[in-house]
């Protein structure tokens, strides 16, 4: 008898992703849904999607979802978590959302040690609005608002938000991963699992930054976009555990 080895995760709705071919959001959604099932927290999770490409995340995750204004995910998640401290609350945010318009909300949530988890999807551009410069756009990288490439003298430097959040004393676990290869996808899954567990143990603010391909706005094929993550993005945003005060504390 045939054994089913691959199926739709329990906590993803039967909906077709609107994401572009080769986009990392679909993979990350799947990972989160798998983790929710594996940790058996589907009846306790409340997700906060952002403004941006992932705004429609509530059409995909089959858990309670509450929309946040652009950049305010950490504040909305804070409000939910403070009222329902035994639930698992995560915000899902892009680079423009979290590292530009929502920088203050994010840093202060981390600094207060809010017991929430943030999924920070870094693709280096404003995707939904059509590929403008993001706070994380690399030096020299083309975008629709950096003609000739990002000139750091004119446009400033890419922002190391995760490193900044690691300085905040209330954060307990921050890791940067990628979803451009099977190996990195597995590493991302381990990181998100660890972040959720940190929250379940009441340790404080956890965040996983995920470098994610955007073939459409990078104007690359899906395969080349994955290569570009490896060859260019990781030089500015190295994949690593940035802060870990969880080891030994996790049950």
């Amino acid at each position, binding site marked *: 008898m045939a054994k089913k080895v691959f199926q739709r995760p329990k906590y993803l709705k039967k909906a077709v992703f609107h994401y572009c071919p080769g986009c990392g959001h679909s993979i990350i959604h799947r990972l989160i849904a798998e983790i929710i099932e594996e940790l058996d927290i589907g009846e306790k999770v409340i997700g906060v999607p952002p403004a941006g490409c992932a705004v429609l995340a509530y059409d995909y995750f089959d858990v*309670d979802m509450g*929309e946040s204004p652009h950049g305010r995910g950490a*504040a909305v998640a804070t409000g939910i978590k*403070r009222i329902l401290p035994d639930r698992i609350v995560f915000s899902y945010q892009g680079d423009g959302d979290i590292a530009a318009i929502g920088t203050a909300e994010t840093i202060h949530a981390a600094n207060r040690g809010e017991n929430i988890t943030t999924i920070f999807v870094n693709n280096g551009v404003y995707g939904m609005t059509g590929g403008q410069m993001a706070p994380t756009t690399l030096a020299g990288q083309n975008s629709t608002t950096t003609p000739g490439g990002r000139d750091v003298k004119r446009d400033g430097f890419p922002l190391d938000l995760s490193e900044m959040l690691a300085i905040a004393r209330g954060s307990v676990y921050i890791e940067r991963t990628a979803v451009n290869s099977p190996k990195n996808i597995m590493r991302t899954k381990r990181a998100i699992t660890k972040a959720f567990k940190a929250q379940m143990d009441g340790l404080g603010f956890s965040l996983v930054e995920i470098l994610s391909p955007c073939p459409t706005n990078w104007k690359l094929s899906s395969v080349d976009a994955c290569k570009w993550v490896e060859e260019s993005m990781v030089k500015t945003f190295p994949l690593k555990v940035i802060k870990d005060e969880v080891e030994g504390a996790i049950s």
Partner: protein
Amino acid sequence: MIGEAAVRAGCRFYAGYPITPQNELAEYTASAMARLEDGTFIQAESEIAAINMLIGASMAGARVMTSSSGPGISLKQEGISFLAAMELPAVIVNTMRGGPGLGNIAPAQGDYFQATRGGGHGDYRTIVLAPASGQELAGLTRKAFEYADEYKTPVFILGDGMMGQMMEPVEFPEPIDPRSLPPKPWILDGAKGRPSRIIKSLLLDTSVEEDHNWKLTRKYERITREIARADTYMTTDARLVVTAYGTAARIAKGAIKRARELGLKVGLFRPVTLWPFPKRALVEMSRQVKDFLVFEMSTGQMLEDVKLSLEGRSNVHFYGRPGGIISTPDEIAKVINTLYHRQHLNED
């Protein structure tokens, strides 16, 4: 006063940012929440963060409140628009000060338009309550939470620096245990034994957004029918009626007493709800009163609602002192006296 009344109304979540002249409210609430097992007070990093924390806490089912003054309320407008769109209950206190810009910290009424016209982006309204005494502050705070829950909408308590600093004896209503409030069947608390829920405002399909706009409009019409309210004082035989709210109404009352001593038939029409504006009651009054004097601590904002309500049925006059100037009852009595004679109201 509002802080105590809010806690007694079952409010268990407050987030705010320091701004004068309303810090007493935040400070009181911090202590009150700390005494409660289930109370949360957060001094937020910004006005924007505070209102967004309210969004989350309201989604999770709590009775929630924030407070600020003009400059801070401007910053909160994005979140208030989202609260209205997502039909989330919340109470927002604006202790008005002189403006625009940084202005000053003296009592003023220049935020009437901002409060009654929606304030943020998109097609929406907020309920606006205007207390004129400490006792009313306590009662209307309770009402604000009830309206917010009943109509699933943000509710403003619009006061000013004078109301904010006032000391008066007050009798508070009995405290409510939030656990005794009716359950809200729409909140996000984890999809346990029920289908998952979504609270959102993004409606990309234009016909769906249009339907949502009309649904909100029908709700606003229902609110207008059900809660519009005004208070009157000595209007039975009045030939001139002063129309004022909040602190201005208190000053006007003093002025009317003086005018009555001079034998002038003057009364007061005081809107308690600024939105919905008590149009019907005002129109009813215009059957016998041909002259209304609108008095505001602004350059004339409620004036527009009075004119829109009366549609030319009566003469509408205006006297205003913006910038944080507080008129004395004597000053307003003089304005009344001059107007009364200019309009020949002393003649039969």
